[in-house]
């Protein structure tokens, strides 16, 4: 279906990544946001709280991020599209109820405008060091989806994909921005509402007596019933059966957990998104994401001028990771180069998938800024040797 025009600010704007992200959420149909102030993400909710009253949306500033996350899981169960927004320290607090969202199979979006960490770190400066937290941060086994935008324009565009994916697969989707993109102001073009495709909440058409809240259909995703429609369902963070009733047994765990994981891993080809450029015949392939992907292009240009054949994979959906594609490439190239604003996170995935067939070279940056393109060029030259 098409987007509700009330939330779509059609036109060409000059916006920072945080504002663009907020506009993306509203265009995607988000009508409930709970959040707690934290630099450098707060502008997202400031934008939303100013515009929500004019489109029937509700914003609440909760007492902390534990509460914000719990509130969006709760509100999503009324059929409302929900968002919360935070940065590193708040992301850590949200992990508990991100796990609840995964276990209850709740569609919602969590934005993390990454800053330098650990702990309070560099509140006003950039980082990409929460990428593994996005994958493994909550306890237990689960799979989520995570995206990473490289510009304010993408902060808008990908927000719509984030909401759509969360509805499609009934999972929390993590939106892994970074301070640099969040606080950078650029041109953002917002299309007319009738050009924005929206995935609505898929409500069951079964009557209350026949409905089982956790009976998966063909693609591993159960149908949804929302609170207040007479289904009187039960949902819990405990291991549960198809009725949503707790069952404390290894058998039930064996039924439930693989399904939660497979609904993502079996659909990797549908969920995965990356830009690929010049990987055919390349000696070196850069694997990159977020703001680093932009800076890396300068390093690539420098290396190409020196005659190195460099290809690029820019991850748009970072989780699930496009494992098979990296495996296939590994046998055709000399090396992968992975620049990231951390001391080695996504590089571990690349290295794992390369499986020793191609070398994997990390170009680390501790955070607080972006790479010097020369460092990326140097790594490419080293890799090509």
């Amino acid at each position: 279906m098409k987007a509700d025009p009330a939330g779509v600010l059609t036109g060409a704007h000059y916006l920072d990544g945080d504002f663009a992200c907020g506009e993306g959420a509203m265009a995607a149909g988000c009508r409930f946001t709970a959040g707690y102030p934290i630099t450098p993400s707060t502008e997202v909710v400031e934008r939303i709280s100013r515009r929500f009253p004019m489109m029937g949306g509700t914003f609440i500033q909760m007492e902390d991020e534990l509460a914000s996350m719990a509130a969006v899981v709760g509100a999503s169960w009324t059929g409302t599209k929900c968002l919360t927004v935070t940065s590193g320290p708040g992301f850590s607090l949200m992990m508990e109820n991100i796990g609840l969202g995964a276990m209850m199979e709740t569609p919602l979006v969590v934005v993390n405008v990454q800053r330098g960490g650990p702990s309070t770190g560099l509140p006003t400066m950039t980082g990409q060091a929460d990428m593994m937290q996005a994958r493994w941060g909550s306890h237990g086994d689960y799979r989520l989806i995570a995206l990473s935008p490289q510009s304010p324009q993408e902060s808008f565009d990908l927000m719509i994909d984030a909401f759509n994916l969360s509805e499609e697969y009934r999972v929390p989707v993590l939106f892994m921005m970074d301070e640099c993109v969040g606080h950078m102001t650029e041109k953002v073009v917002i299309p007319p509402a009738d050009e924005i495709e929206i995935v609505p909440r898929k409500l069951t058409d079964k009557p209350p007596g026949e409905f089982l809240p956790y009976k998966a259909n063909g693609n591993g995703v159960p149908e949804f019933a929302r609170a207040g429609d007479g289904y009187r369902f039960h949902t819990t963070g405990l291991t549960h059966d198809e009725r949503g009733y707790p069952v404390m047994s290894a058998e039930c765990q064996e039924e439930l957990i693989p399904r939660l994981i497979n609904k993502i891993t079996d659909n990797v080809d549908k969920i995965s998104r990356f830009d690929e450029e010049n990987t055919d015949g390349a000696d070196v392939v850069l694997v990159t994401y977020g703001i680093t992907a932009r800076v890396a292009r300068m390093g690539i240009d420098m290396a190409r001028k020196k005659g190195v054949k460099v290809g690029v994979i820019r991850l748009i959906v970072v989780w699930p990771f496009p494992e098979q594609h990296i495996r296939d490439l590994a046998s055709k190239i000399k090396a992968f180069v992975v620049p990231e604003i951390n001391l080695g996170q996504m590089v571990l995935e690349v290295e794992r998938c390369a499986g020793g067939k191609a070398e994997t070279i990390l170009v680390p940056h501790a955070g607080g800024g972006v790479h010097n393109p020369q460092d990326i060029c140097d790594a490419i030259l080293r890799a090509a040797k």
Partner: protein
Amino acid sequence: MSRTDIRITGFGGQGVVLSGYIIGRACAINASQHATMIQSFGPEARGSACSATLAISDSEVLYPYISRPDVFVVMSTEGYDKYRDELKDDGILVYEQNLVHPTLKEGQPSFGVPSTRIAESLGRTIVQNIVMLGFFAASAQIVSREDMRDAVKSSVPPGTEELNLKAFDAGCAHFDETYGEKKEEVGAAAANQG
């Protein structure tokens, strides 16, 4: 690829960030260029050396930060002291002449404007930064006066357009009156940045 980097600095309350926003908007929305603005945040954004930077280019801006600006717009002494050494050897200096007393360097065209006093004469000191923008548009010639004027109009709070446009025009006029005859030379200097 040609890229022009700008730094604007002043003290909190002078509208440094809005100034950067207006220049960026004029370039990105009105003049179909690419313009990436970054503002200083946190403790840096408070006090007397608040700053915003712009990277303006005819192709996509890949590297968002700047190190040696082509144009340095200064509205406070503290901002001047903090960033003065960054300006390119042939960079353009645009400054509030009653607040900043720069040490002029050879090779760096410089233009002073009493923007606070002009704003006062219009009845509202708050539009000092818009006077400065008019003066900047006329002196640095990075984006046309019309595009800048339009960006001012669409960026200021509704109801204040008239006053702000008056301020903008006053800034332009001050340049024409003071530096009018040097226009050719200035234009050449700006073109060199490319």
